[in-house]
């Protein structure tokens, strides 16, 4: 019965995940505090072709969007499949976590997570090749994210040509 009551107040979709930004300037406690107050979301698994306009349209469904920062390949300066969405209020960001996380944008299931706040430089991928780290190691073929993962591409075309 207690368990049922607790279940009533459960709001697990807005819980902070296990992910912590390794480049965060500050300690774990500070990062968690920011995550718990944040109105900024990280959005991942985007197609490289997903536009700012599409992100706006979707995320505006949970409240007024203050700013969108599209994640860029550090070398090519082109979209590399993630972005930040900043709301004016935390309540709006919470609703995005509850109702947009795990649904589709541009035909792909997107993933949202709390972010401690955008800082200049964080819009760049941290993978060795310039994109996101996840695109370095993945082995599947994803046409919307540059085809094969970077390592797999190098393995498949040892001369170093890129494949799509």
């Amino acid at each position, binding site marked *: *019965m*207690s*368990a*049922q*009551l607790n*279940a*009533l107040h*459960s*709001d*697990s*979709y*807005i819980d902070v995940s296990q992910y912590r930004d390794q480049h965060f300037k500050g300690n774990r406690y500070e990062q968690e505090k920011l995550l718990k107050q944040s109105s900024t979301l990280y959005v991942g698994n985007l197609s490289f072709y997903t*536009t*700012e*306009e*599409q992100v*706006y*349209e*979707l995320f505006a*469904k*949970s409240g*007024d969007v203050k700013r*969108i920062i*599209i994640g860029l390949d550090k070398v090519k300066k082109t979209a590399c499949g993630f972005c930040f969405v900043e709301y004016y209020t935390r309540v709006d960001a919470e*609703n995005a976590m*509850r*109702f*947009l996380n795990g*649904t*589709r*944008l*541009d*035909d792909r299931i997107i993933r949202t997570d709390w972010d401690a706040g955008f800082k200049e430089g964080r819009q760049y991928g941290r993978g060795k090749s310039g994109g996101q780290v996840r695109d370095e190691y993945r082995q599947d073929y994803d046409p919307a994210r540059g085809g094969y993962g970077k390592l797999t591409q190098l393995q498949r075309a040892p001369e170093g040509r890129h494949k799509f």
Partner: protein
Amino acid sequence: MSVHFDLQSTSSLESNLEGLAGVLEADLPNYKNKILRILCSVARQLPEKLTIYTTLVGLLNARNYNFGGEFVEAMIRQLKETLKSNMFSEAVYLVRFLGDLVNCHVIAAPSMVAMFENFVCVIQEDDIPQVRSDWYVYAVLSSLPWVGKELYEKKDVEMDRLLSQIDGYLKRRQKTHVPMLQVWTAEKPHPQEEYLDCLWAQIQKLKKDRWQERHILRPYIAFDSVLCEALQHNLPPFTPPPHSESAVYPMPRVIFRMFDYTDAPEGPVMPGSHSVERFVIEENLHCIMKSHWKERKTCAAQLLSYPGKSKIPLNYHIVEVIFGELFQLPLPPHIDVMYTALLIELCKLQPGSLPQVLAQATEMMYMRLDTMNTTCIDRFVTWFSHHLSNFQFRWSWDDWVDCLAVDHDKPKPKFVKEVLEKCMRLSYHQRIVDIVPANFSPLIPADPIFTFKYGEENAQLPGYPMSITVSNAIKNRASNEEILAVLKDVPNPNQEDDDDEGDGFNPLKIEVFLQTLLNLAAKSFSHSFSALAKFHEVLKSLSDSDEGKLHVLRVVYEVWRNHPQMISVLVDKMIRTQIVDCAAVANWIFSQDMTHDFTRFYVWEILHSTIRKMNKHVQKIQRELEEAKEKLEKQQHRKKDSGDEEDMEKNSDEEDGQLEEQIDRLQEKVESAQSEQKNLFLVVFQRFIMMLTEHLAHCETAGTDFNTAWYKNCIERLQQIFLMHHGTIQQYMGTLEDLLFTAELDHHILAVYRQFCGLQA
């Protein structure tokens, strides 16, 4: 004390309850207060499990009479608190729980009847809002499916009298609000009934059926031999708390009906609209959503595991209740996007059946667009396009080929157009071209590209050379001052030659600068926002007058008229950076230039977003003022408590002085913001009245029917302003009635105002 019983599976429900009652009884000596608290919370917050917990309380009462008495007292205390705190839905659940406790032999039936009699007495109170007496009547009627039989068996004379008084009340009460709250204006195929009328019909039918009710799960029946040995308690006499100005009673509702037994051809039959089963099922489904809306997977699972689901076409009930909430007027109980996410989860859990019911519902709603309220059509468009975007936009568009045969301003083609526009916003233009059959191309939205006035092919235009100059200046990183200097040379088509300075409103200056700037920044939202930020000073200077603001908006529309989403975000940015103000946006929307787009959804999204920004701004400053006042009060308390050293007093006097000054400033800010807010509503309402009056007068003299598609759209947009911002508008009722909604107004327009007044009357 931890409780880990699963009270879901009915097969072992009785043994679970028996076991739980045993455990709790043993814990009573040490944990009585905690148990009381938990049980009270359960009564208030888990209404869908009502009868399970009343049975539990019944078993506890049978074992421990004193505990039963204390629980009843705690419930009454809770009921008083919820009523005083405007928590009216929770209060209903408490009343229902108390009613069901009669079935569990915890409360004596006559004392429950007495409470209901006191509730019904509220009908006689003078000078109260109707919504107050409505609530007390509702609380009685909505408990009867659970406890009507028992109360009637014990006190039939009193119950008859009660019901007769309610009958009289229902016949005399005002129902001006009903047209404003109906999703469909048509009575066929299903009448959209006022909620008390519907409930009354259901109770009447229940009474005719001699209170036989077979849907509700009643675990206490299995324990009858134990429970009937228990001693019952009498409810203390309960006087409803008197009406106060701060009371906010629930608004009336219209019951949403879209399905009947003919729509679910196979399987169990759907209970009729006036059956009490229908009421109970819908109540329970609403309660499940209220409990679990934040967790869509849990919510979907709970809905689909509704007890007794094998006897009803559950998917149809779920879909109907969900759309009922989504389309509820004035506003849905929860944020719109929740319903989209929930329906997707339901489709995932029941892939073989739910999508078909959903498609059937969509088809039905499409067929009935002609009589659907415009606000509800908006929500239908938003839901449907977002839903489709999760399913690769797959839809049998060919089924809707009939919409191509009528004028595109008619509801069906208009709906398809708006859906395709929203689908495009979530994807891209070519995708939309690809997903619809070729004959639908007239309904496809325009390619969202920039329209530049000063392209090479227009070199003969007066502003062309200046546009080139400005463009080069911007590319060479000119500062705001440099741009302003460059713009000084732009001739003013409005001005006389000897009228000098060139600082007044100059439409050509605005046009040349803004067209050129937005052209350079057309690549994305971010580019355009950067441009607005970089040249904020120039823009503020150009938009200094009301005419300037209006012209800025006009130019934005001109260049981006194929990209309504861009217009929306630019208008939003310009309001937030104070390049234009809310009243300018309202005037622009109602201006001649916007006549062509006046019935398009995006225009109203902009207006409502503008009004919301204004409201949030006022609330923000009001909060700041409250916080400052609280701070001052705290400081003054501290002074009173400590109060010795002269030095300390002097310092705190200074602090007080600063705070008082801040409070004065904030007070001024609040008054100024409220004045701006009132003015915004006045502008909006005034323009509506002008437009509608003109149309009505024109039709009268020409002898044509005034009820055109445009008129329906316009009058429902006026309703929408009232509905979406009813809380804020309430404070300006006096001004609105004195200045605008006077008796001289055409009665069609005045009717909308009267319906609105009926909402909290």
